[in-house]
């Protein structure tokens, strides 16, 4: 027998009151834990995915949408831009590098992104298997897609038009997998990468063969190319694709998004304005748009935080009341403990221990609940950003949650512990 065990016995002697208080506290702390985890991982992901991208250029529309679709591949693209105009940007002295992206197709909801090898370098992609695409319709799978679809190098699949599941399939030109990337922990894990040419040619076929264009108006339509000569057709399908910069083409072509890097700091001031007012394109800065987004989300977050603190305060009060009430019933017990040799300090400890053990339980349960909740949310979303969050990463901040909870326990026990300390045994025991 020791103080720990004794406190524990007292706690388990009142399972309902103990359980309720632990649960209340756990709820509050679970909310805080989820918020911490989400904030940490989202922010990390968001900055990581946008690393090396100073400016995103695309069709006019919502700048936030441009960023979400172009960098994070969440939202729908704002539209397409002409490649002629896009190419001019490469010659701008303020621009260090440009990576073009052509979007428009998906495979089971995973986006197919037409780009060049610079994109692989931007995210420092490494191959788990195979190599990068060299010819049209050769694709490289992000690690997560490879895992979820079970597709292997050498296998083929058909893309669907549009960037979300359920659109019709392109049946004529299956994509052939030539490489699978190692897990990067970035947006690339959820992308199917190929050449811009692949995306173009798929749509050439789709447009010429099918008159009806699906109602999915949000899906990005790449342009109808003029009918081509059959021999060129055969030829171009097997000629190597552009590995950097823009593909060569005689036809007026379009791309969806450009990822830009500034040459110098002045570019940050001048370039967005130049593009926004001087061209039919739109430029948006990932860092600016994301901080704007987080500001908007901040309101909801503080609301949740408020709720969490209310829950914690209530549970703190609950613990105080529980300890205080049980102390009344326990005055005799405390007097007896003194009579068999316990000191005042030990009784003080006993009550503090009870409060602290209660909140410790609440904290551990709360943290576990928070992680479990996140895990459930993640397993409900197998695509999209949420699916890339990790539920079982533990943060340093969670120690703060624990410390905070113990603080609540300590605070709630001060008065009961003090009154235990003050109990006069003689008086208590003489009372009938």
């Amino acid at each position, binding site marked *: *027998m*020791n103080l720990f065990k*004794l406190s524990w*016995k*007292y706690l*388990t*002697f009142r399972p309902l009151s103990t359980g309720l208080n632990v649960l209340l506290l756990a709820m509050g702390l679970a909310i805080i834990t989820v918020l911490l985890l989400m904030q940490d991982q989202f922010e990390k992901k968001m900055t990581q995915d946008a690393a090396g991208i100073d400016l995103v250029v695309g069709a006019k529309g919502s700048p936030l949408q441009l960023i979400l679709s172009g960098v994070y591949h969440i939202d729908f693209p704002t539209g397409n831009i002409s490649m002629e105009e896009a190419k001019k940007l490469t010659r701008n002295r303020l621009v260090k590098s440009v990576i073009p992206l052509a979007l428009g197709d998906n495979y089971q909801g995973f986006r197919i992104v037409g780009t060049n090898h610079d994109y692989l370098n931007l995210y420092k992609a490494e191959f788990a298997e195979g190599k990068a695409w060299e010819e049209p319709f050769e694709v490289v799978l992000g690690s997560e897609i490879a895992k979820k679809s079970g597709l292997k190098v050498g296998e083929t699949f058909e893309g669907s038009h549009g960037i979300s599941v359920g659109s019709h399939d392109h049946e004529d030109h299956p994509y052939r997998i030539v490489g699978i990337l190692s897990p990067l922990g970035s947006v690339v894990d959820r992308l199917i990468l190929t050449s811009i040419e692949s995306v173009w040619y798929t749509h050439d076929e789709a447009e010429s063969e099918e008159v009806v264009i699906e109602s999915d108006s949000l899906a990005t339509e790449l342009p109808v190319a003029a009918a081509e000569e059959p021999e060129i057709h055969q030829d171009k399908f097997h000629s190597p694709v552009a590995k950097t910069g823009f593909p060569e083409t005689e036809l007026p072509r379009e791309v969806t998004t450009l990822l830009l890097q500034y040459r110098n700091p002045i570019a940050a001031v001048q370039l967005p304005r130049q593009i926004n007012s001087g061209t039919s394109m739109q430029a948006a800065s990932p860092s600016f748009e994301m901080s704007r987004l987080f500001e908007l989300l901040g309101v909801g977050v503080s609301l949740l935080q408020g709720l969490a603190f209310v829950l914690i305060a209530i549970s703190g009060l609950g613990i105080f009341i529980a300890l205080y009430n049980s102390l009344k019933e326990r005055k*005799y*017990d405390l*007097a*007896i*403990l*003194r*009579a*068999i*040799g*316990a*000191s*005042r*300090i*030990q009784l003080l400890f006993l009550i503090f221990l009870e409060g602290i053990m209660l909140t410790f339980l609440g904290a551990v349960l709360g943290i576990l609940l928070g992680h479990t909740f996140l895990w459930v949310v993640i397993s409900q979303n197998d695509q999209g950003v949420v699916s890339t969050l990790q539920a079982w990463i533990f943060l340093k901040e969670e120690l703060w949650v624990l410390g905070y909870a113990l603080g609540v326990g300590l605070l709630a026990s001060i008065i009961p512990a003090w009154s235990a300390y003050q109990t006069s*045994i*003689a008086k208590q*025991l*003489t009372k009938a």
Partner: protein
Amino acid sequence: MLLESKKVQYTHPGQKTLAFPDIRLNHGESILVLGKSGSGKTTLLNLLAGLLSPETGTISLAGTKLSELKGQKQDLFRGKEIGIVFQKPHLLSALTVRENLELTHFFSKKEGQNLDKLLAELGLTAKAKSSVLTLSEGEAQRVSIARALANEPKLILADEPTSSLDDENAANVIELLKSQAAKIGAALVIVTHDQRVKSQIPNYIEVESL
């Protein structure tokens, strides 16, 4: 002398001063404290246990003056050397019978008696793992006696240990206290106004309010 109290006086706030007759007890001796209700019997017991400090006079147990011990030291001394049986058993209801006894060893930091043997002697072996809430009144009182004995104290104090018990149980409890005190060589002080007890312990003092 094992227990010696000399010219002890005590005043409860707002009450008249209580003066107590001297007590001298050796190992294995027992004494009854008699007196009318409100005469100060419980007060004397609290003084002997060190739960109250006398205004004048001294109480010493095995050569140690109780009034000279302070705070934690006094608590520890009480835990080690004094066993108290209260009028009501006052067992800790969150614990089992055996755990109630284990507490005395923990708080007094003393090895004490073998608890299983003690429980067997008091006929409580079958109840060792039961919650104290399931005990009969007589059983509960026996557990509280076991608790007072668990540390093999030098002094056993009992405040009306028989008042809520029937004749047979009352006689048993006194017999138990006497035999156990004799076995461990402790002095025994029993406060009572229970006439039944007098036949078992002839030695007594009387507390009178002045």
